[in-house]
């Protein structure tokens, strides 16, 4: 299967996602320039982390206007799997492919460290290899990862089971001090109603090799690889 990794000017985790897909999981991978207008036959699209267009405005606010976002939207609407990681998640929010918004971390500081995540939903193409309740240890690296949705939207998200990962303590229990950025309901990842579009703040591509200090991110890639193999 083929991964398409979108490169915006200012993307900086594009090579990391590409490396994970290609070198760690042995899949085809292609970079897709943001000015391109087709997805080069990608089976799955990754919007990688970084600071697209510098993110001097709201994060992701400029990237939604990049030409490639038209094809990405059409791909998502056809049910194609799309994963937004960190800045990619922010871009999905700004372009309306996922609901809600990002605020600055409640500490007002960028934070880079490993966090614990509890898997809430396994019927997305990016979490199908997990079991509900499994705890993952994966790094974050962001200054604006404080997920926010107004009460009614949040209620709908929860009712539709769209919260995919939550920040927890190492035992999978919700605890304020283990929420690194202040996200409402400790939300770390959500999916679209159709479940094929997933946005997550943690970086699974940074946790695919034991040499890097952990392999819990493999689950995300293994899920999509086996989901596509079945299709």
């Amino acid at each position, binding site marked *: 299967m083929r991964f398409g990794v979108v490169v915006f*000017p*200012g993307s*900086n*985790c594009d*090579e*990391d996602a590409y*490396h*994970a897909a290609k*070198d760690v999981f042995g899949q085809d991978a292609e970079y897709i320039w943001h000015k391109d207008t087709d997805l080069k036959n990608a089976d799955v699209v990754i919007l990688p*982390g*970084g*600071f697209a*267009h*510098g*993110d*001097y405005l709201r994060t992701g606010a400029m990237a939604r206007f990049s030409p490639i976002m038209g094809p990405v939207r059409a791909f998502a609407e056809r049910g194609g799997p799309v994963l937004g990681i960190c800045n990619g998640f922010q871009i999905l929010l700004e372009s309306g492919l996922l609901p809600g918004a990002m605020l600055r971390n*409640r*500490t*007002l*500081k*960028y*934070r*880079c*460290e490993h966090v614990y995540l509890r898997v809430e939903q396994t019927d997305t193409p990016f979490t199908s290899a997990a079991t509900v309740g499994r705890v993952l240890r994966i*790094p974050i*690296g962001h*200054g604006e990862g404080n997920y926010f949705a107004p009460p009614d939207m949040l209620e709908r998200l929860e009712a539709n089971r769209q919260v995919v990962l939550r920040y927890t303590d190492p035992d999978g229990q919700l605890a304020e*001090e283990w929420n690194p950025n202040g996200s409402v309901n400790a939300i770390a990842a959500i999916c679209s109603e159709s479940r094929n579009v997933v946005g997550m703040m943690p*970086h699974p*591509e*940074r946790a*695919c*090799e034991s*040499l*890097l*200090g952990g392999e819990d991110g493999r689950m995300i890639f293994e899920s999509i690889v086996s989901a596509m193999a079945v299709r």
Partner: protein
Amino acid sequence: MDAHVIERHGLKPDEYERIKEFLGREPNLTELGIFSVMWSEHCSYKSSRVHLKTLPTRGPQVLQGPGENAGAVAIGDGLAAVFKIESHNHPSFIEPYQGAATGVGGIIRDIFTMGARPIALLNSLRFGSLDAPGTRRLLEGVVAGIAGYGNSIGIPTVGGEIAFEPSYAGNPLVNVFCLGIARASDIIKGVASGVGNAVYYVGAKTGRDGIHGATMASAEFDEKSAEKRPAVQVGDPFMEKLLLEACLEVMQTDALVGIQDMGAAGLTCSTTEMGSRGGAGVEIDVAHVPQRESGMTPYDIMLSESQERMLLVVKRGRESEVERIFDKWDLHAVHIGEVTDDGMLRVKQKGTVVAEIPNRALTDEAPLYRRPMAEPDYLAEVRALDLDRVIGSQPVDANAALLRLLGSPTIGSKKWVYRQYDHMVRTNTINYPGFGAGVVRIKGTHRALALSVDGNGRYCYLDPHRGAMLAVAEAARNVACAGARPLGATNCLNFGNPERPGIMWQFAKAVEGIGDACRALDVPITGGNVSLYNETDGKAIYPTPVIGVVGLLEHADRVVSRRFQRAGDAIVLLGEGRDELGGSEYLKVVHDLVRGEPPSLDLQAEKGLQDLLVALASDRLMHSAHDCSDGGIAVTLAECCFDTAGMGAEVSILGGSVAAALFGESASRVVVSVAPEDVDEALERASAANVPARVIGKTGGTVLKIAVAGALAIECSIHDAERVWGSAIERYFARRVA
């Protein structure tokens, strides 16, 4: 020309006379400005050059020594490690966020200018006491600036060091280091050659920011320094990210002759240095230079230090190829001039010559001073240390002293700092900040590089020669503790006003010390930076040479960190303590004293120790390794226990004085943990290498117990100690939101 104008440009009367000799006439104002920046201490190294020439810069591994934008060493597989350290002290004091951010931007440009992909950053920072007014603002600003730039451009900050001393209160130090990887055959230099080749300007527009930044960095500070804020530039990491990607893409084409970033002294420095290196001249027309504001004069344009700008020399006939690549990245490459054969820097404005200066007058023949030196008076006084009087006959409360040291900001955990840095982007980091040397693997190979920056201003204040040797030894030892063989070094020399003989003496002695240590440890200096005039209101900082060392690990998966790995491992001390307390953190923190002689250093023994460490790591004979430095073996042992989920250790060490045995900072000592079945082998290896080695205890339990000469001196729970250590910096910000 008016004497005040000359003085305001930082030029001495005799220097002005030399300018007239070179030109055969009076300079105009633009020319005076150009001379003033090129002859500033910052660009010309006029006080330091005679000393720097004594440093060892060669070795079979060295691909590029000093004189280019960065140094380079071979690391196998046809690859080169390209690296350099640079200071941004003065701008960071005036405007901490932008000063630090543009420091990071500048050093990154130095690396990719060489054709290397930057893959790691480190920094070495010095501030006044954390409880002194203003320090927290400076620390927060500098850290945020480094983070803001590095995180956005996507280069991980994988390590560094921070110390707090009152001597830096009016003059913080911000030294930033960058490492890149290039194919050795693809290294590109900052040369202009080939008559008629096109000179291109790429990147951000030129504004009036940073005019005379280099001159500012060549003067002392006083109460009016805040007025110099317009001389600090503003960084744009996004622009630099585009420049980085576009330049690396252009470098794949072989259409480039040379490239240089516009750092200090901007367009002036890049045009003259490139011309000078290529033995050519450069002619540009400032009317073509993209400008951010209207009404800029040639003087403004030539002296601006606006950030994120590059100067390229492109082969004739290949221009459109280069322009196309920059266009892809939405950058404009503007043709502003040509390479000539007359060795002149010629600046035109709409065709009219507005400045014309021989390149050599600005570079090779810039002033060179052998400044007078004299041992400063304070030394005789501070070297005397009567330990009996200081410590007296009272028993040392070693538990309390250990906790005070662990909770002091210089020794305590720097997590509050490094978790603001993205230290994982590019997915190469295999030893995180806070765990010893930063280590990054090299994708596509089995190798990794270990990086460490170290310096100890207090040691250098007490003995600049030995202090500088100790800095080299510590940086190389940290790299060896990770299992890497030190390959090369870069230095950042932070000192006071060189016009004062005492400061110049410190400088000369420190450079001598660096040279001695680098020769003995076989780590040539491949480049660096000198920052003088670090004084405020006539008070100089501690002389602070900071050394960055790069080492090579043949097998990335054999990397070693400071943490104990398993309960039941033997703890082995390599090297031995020598009852030394001079210049220690213990004396400073517990007795408020900066006195005595810094630890002695036997370079031969140090070299043997480092070779042994590399061999033990390579043969997987040690599970962890941590060097004994600030706070002595007691602090080292505690740090070995931290981040292990509370694993303790039980240790017994020799020693006469309890304080010196626990907290003395004798050099060339490393605490390693070894699997019980490997102990005999490890000890034999040490013995064969002539390194003193002794089993001093074993890991396990949840308490750190240390006996000195058979008597229990320390017994503290790792959980409690780690809490004190972990909050050492954070507690100063405790009133803020968690």
